[in-house]
């Protein structure tokens, strides 16, 4: 009677036991007759070694004991689980003295009620309340955070003083472990992609060969199909259709509308839904042009490339493995749009300014701390300031040029707008410390020197002069407006004498405005 054999080996169900009591069973291995299932189990375990090694010494002592039923005496099974607890060395444990021992932390007398525990780490005696924490230790009571460590109770001090402890728990630096895992994963990925490329290459070359062989045959269409499908199966073993109940990528169950397809590169069964695109049929020619670096068979031997009309079905994951990095490489070689090229320059300028500013501030501080009339410091400061101003002027120019570029798409338009926004904010922010300089420096002497020594940037005028002239021009234009109003009201009220004076003044203002405008030239408004 062997019907129950398969189950007997591992099963401990009481039903089997009951059945076994009434019948005689034979051992499936040696044919020996045993009185019950229980005994057969024991026999199999002991004689034929179906159980662990401890079983053998049990047999002699207790015939009825069943190893598989978890009733094994403590010294073997439990012992292996709690190995650390038993083997823990207790040399460092403090011996309790009846009625005298006190908790190392709270100082209460220790007795049976509040507990009497040695901290497994430091060995001091504690009450239950102050030895609650669990940490991993090795046999000799040292910290052990690896998997070999076993959980032990310990006091608060030992709990908080271990390495890496903080208020939120234990922090462990796992960067190196992560790096290792990442590297192996990367290597795996590369291997997979190499393998897939290899398969793709063989597949395509095979298809080309088949096409070449049959290119002059009338029945080519009939013959090529089965040959290709044979080739496909020889490249990679296809997963069994019957086992596949759901798509290997999107995990949707297959059905009438969810047809099964095999990926020709990995052999997995995937769906072909429009929405998930788990797999798709791609013309061979497209695949070849997408991966031009692979060594495909010389296509010229084919009558016409257009004859190569075969498709290859591949799943999305394989496509990603093979083509993602190629697409990236391809995109990298594409020329940047004009706006991005310009932005790169702009960005470089920005970096220069950002790097210069701290130096400028530092120079300003030293000048402020030390004697302000120190020639060298002033010169240095002026030099830095000039440099900054030049760069900012360039930055401004460049950002304006970017804004004026013609955009080809909505996306570029967006980029352009944000560049403009960013640039104006940047200039405003970075110009602020430069504007402050006259206040910081001695306003009468040093300021003059700083501006005088700065390069001639605009129209043979220093920046300070341009600023001054612009200011004057603005004031003059305000005044002109005022005088014009006064003149109007004077004429209206028939105060002609006043009107004459005002008119002459207006002429004078106009003359001054003209003067300033010619002086400023391009730098006017």
């Amino acid at each position, binding site marked *: 009677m062997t019907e129950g054999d398969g189950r007997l080996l591992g099963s401990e169900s009481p039903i089997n036991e009951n059945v076994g009591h009434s019948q005689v069973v034979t051992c499936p291995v040696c044919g020996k007759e045993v009185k019950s299932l229980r005994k057969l189990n024991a026999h199999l375990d002991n004689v034929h070694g179906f159980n662990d090694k401890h079983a053998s010494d049990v047999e002699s002592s207790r015939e009825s004991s069943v190893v598989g039923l978890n009733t094994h005496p403590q010294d073997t099974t439990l012992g292996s689980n709690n190995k650390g607890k038993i083997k823990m060395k207790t040399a460092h444990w403090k011996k309790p003295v009846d009625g005298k021992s006190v908790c190392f932390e709270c100082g209460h007398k220790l007795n049976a009620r509040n507990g009497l525990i040695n901290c497994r780490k430091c060995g001091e005696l504690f009450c239950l309340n102050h030895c609650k924490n669990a940490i991993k230790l090795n046999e000799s009571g040292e910290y052990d955070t690896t998997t070999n460590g076993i959980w032990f109770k310990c006091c608060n001090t030992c709990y908080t003083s271990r390495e890496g402890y903080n208020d939120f728990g234990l922090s462990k630096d796992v960067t190196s472990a992560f790096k290792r895992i990442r590297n192996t994963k990367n290597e795996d990925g590369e291997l997979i992609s190499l393998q897939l490329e290899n398969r793709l290459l063989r597949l395509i070359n095979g298809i080309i060969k088949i096409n070449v062989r049959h290119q002059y045959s009338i029945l080519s269409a009939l013959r090529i199909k089965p040959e290709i499908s044979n080739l496909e199966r020889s490249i990679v073993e296809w997963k069994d259709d019957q086992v596949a109940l759901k798509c290997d990528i999107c995990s949707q169950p297959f059905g009438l509308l969810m047809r099964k397809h095999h990926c020709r590169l990995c052999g997995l069964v995937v769906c072909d839904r429009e929405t998930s695109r788990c797999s798709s049929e791609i013309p061979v020619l497209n695949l070849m042009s997408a991966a031009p670096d692979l060594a495909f068979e010389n296509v010229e031997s084919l009558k016409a490339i257009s004859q190569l009309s075969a498709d290859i079905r591949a799943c999305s994951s394989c496509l990603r493995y093979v083509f993602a990095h190629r697409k990236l490489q391809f995109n990298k070689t594409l020329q940047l749009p004009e706006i991005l090229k310009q932005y790169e320059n702009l960005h470089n300028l920005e970096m220069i300014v950002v790097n210069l500013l701290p130096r400028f501030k530092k120079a300003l501080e030293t000048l402020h701390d030390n004697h302000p009339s120190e020639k060298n410091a002033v010169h240095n400061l002026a030099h830095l300031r000039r440099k900054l101003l030049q760069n900012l002027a360039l930055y401004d120019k460049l950002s304006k040029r970017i804004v004026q570029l013609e955009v080809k798409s909505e996306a570029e338009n967006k980029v352009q707008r944000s560049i403009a926004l960013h640039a104006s904010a940047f200039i405003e922010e970075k110009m602020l410390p430069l504007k402050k300089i006259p206040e910081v420096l001695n306003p009468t002497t040093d300021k003059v020197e700083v501006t005088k020594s700065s390069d001639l940037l605009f129209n043979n005028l220093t920046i300070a002069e341009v600023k001054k002239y612009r*200011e004057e021009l603005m*004031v003059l234009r*305000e005044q002109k407006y005022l005088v014009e109003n006064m003149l109007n009201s004077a004429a209206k009220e028939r105060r002609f004498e006043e009107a004459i004076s005002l008119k002459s003044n207006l002429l004078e203002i106009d003359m001054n405005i003209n003067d300033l405008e010619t002086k400023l030239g391009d730098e006017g408004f």
Partner: protein
Amino acid sequence: MLQFKLVLLGDSSVGKSSIVHRFVKDSFDEYRESTIGAAFLSQTIKLSEQYDEQVLKFEIWDTAGQERYKSLAPMYYRNANAALVVYDVTEPGSLPKAKLWVDELKEKVSDDKLIICLVGNKLDLAAEKESSSLVDESEAREFAKDNNLLFHQVSAKTGENVIKVFEEIGEILYLQNKDKIQESKKPAGSNVSLQRPSTNDSQSCCV
């Protein structure tokens, strides 16, 4: 009627506009806004009998004291006949600024007939304050004397001395221009030409 151009200079908020308004409109505004650019006002005064009751007209340019408008001032003091350089007697910082203005006037204006009058304003406030926080009157007077300036302390609020300043300037101007005045008076007062000018030229349309 004689016209004279007069300009007011001085640090901001010393009361230049208030003095002018007291003189021109005889009014005072506790919360006057600061002047933008330069304001133009005119006023006529009649001198006393001593000066032939001569009527003078002042065209006054009241400049703004703020630093921003400093560049406007030269345009107005260049052809001026008189300049009032105003400081605030309760604000010691304003006198040095006034001195700077005087120096600038002496340097830039070639006309040696230019009358400069140093005016300390806000005299009414001086009574309330401790003398230590006031401008030293003697210092101002000394400076005025050294530079050959007229000197007055006024209060635009109460009107004290304001008219007097302008009258004194007017008197000096009258004395300076006395000869001219009398010359111009003579022909104007004696004959009136009734002869109509000839229209016998081809340019004119009415024959």
